[in-house]
């Protein structure tokens, strides 16, 4: 039986994106079933334009060099890998409505759903994480 990992992504910075997608890809590579629920600022992480230019936390811009030096993959690269390995992305309908976002603004291949869509997946999860 494969394990199930349920992740809530509710913040929209670059560091948040790495936390979410690193764990998600690592879990998927370990044959675990992964779903991420993107809500509030977390929607940035799957927004077609925004996810290519996610901001570093204020005052931490100097870390950019370290990321390059350590050859950390870019977020779009991690996202592609995650989707390749079957990680399920769920955009939060309520947040999208509130922020005036359409499904077309978000990455292809995502689902849109409400809290219950995520909870239905999460009720059988072995690991639940919030970022």
């Amino acid at each position, binding site marked *: 039986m494969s394990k199930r990992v349920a992740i809530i992504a509710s913040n929209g910075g670059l560091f948040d994106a790495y936390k979410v997608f*690193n764990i998600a890809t690592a879990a998927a*590579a*370990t*044959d675990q079933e992964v779903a991420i629920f993107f809500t509030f600022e977390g929607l940035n992480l799957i927004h077609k334009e925004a996810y290519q230019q996610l901001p570093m936390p204020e005052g931490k811009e100097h870390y950019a060099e370290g990321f390059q030096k350590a050859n950390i993959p870019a977020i779009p690269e991690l996202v592609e890998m995650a989707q390749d390995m079957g990680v399920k992305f769920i955009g939060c309908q309520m947040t999208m409505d509130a922020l005036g976002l359409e499904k077309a603004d978000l990455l292809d291949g995502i689902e849109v759903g409400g809290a219950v869509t995520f909870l239905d997946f999460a009720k059988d999860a072995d690991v639940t994480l919030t970022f």
Partner: protein
Amino acid sequence: MEDIKANVVLDAKGLACPMPIVKTKKAMNNLDAGQVIEVQATDKGSTADIKAWAESTGHQYLGTIEDGEVLKHYLRKSSGEEHEEKKHSRVVNNAELEEKLKVDENIVLLDVRESAEYAFNHIPKAISMPLGDLEDSMDQLNKDDEIYVICRTGNRSDLAAQKLTEKGFTNVINVVPGMSKWSGETKKMND
């Protein structure tokens, strides 16, 4: 340092977490059960990660060699072999073999695991003869000798014992379960 044979070499050098794992997973999909992969990485976290990954996916982690900056991880793809039925009729358990090794100087012990598995850990007296090479190498053996065959879980050695018997070896004994539970003396890579 002796060379370890792998079926596939994966270059994950210069990549940061979680890329070595993701690449390993992808490469593993293209391997046949029982084959060995060498994963070359420079990410220092990869040793712990690869080990944990193998544990949760059921593949066999053989070991890691440091070669300067490069970490070479060796993994063997699992085949679910633990559940297969055994057929060769003459069998001893690990403890019986251990006793035998103490009293009998002339014992012939064949280790039919992959050479990478052998390199990391084997019984000092054991001769490495991977199952895949057995047919070509068995000429080196004497058909009337008492030959003990060992692998990791008793499955490959079972096949080897059957093959040897089929080829006219008269005194072949399979050791179960084998190296996975071996508590006797061994020779390791770094000894």
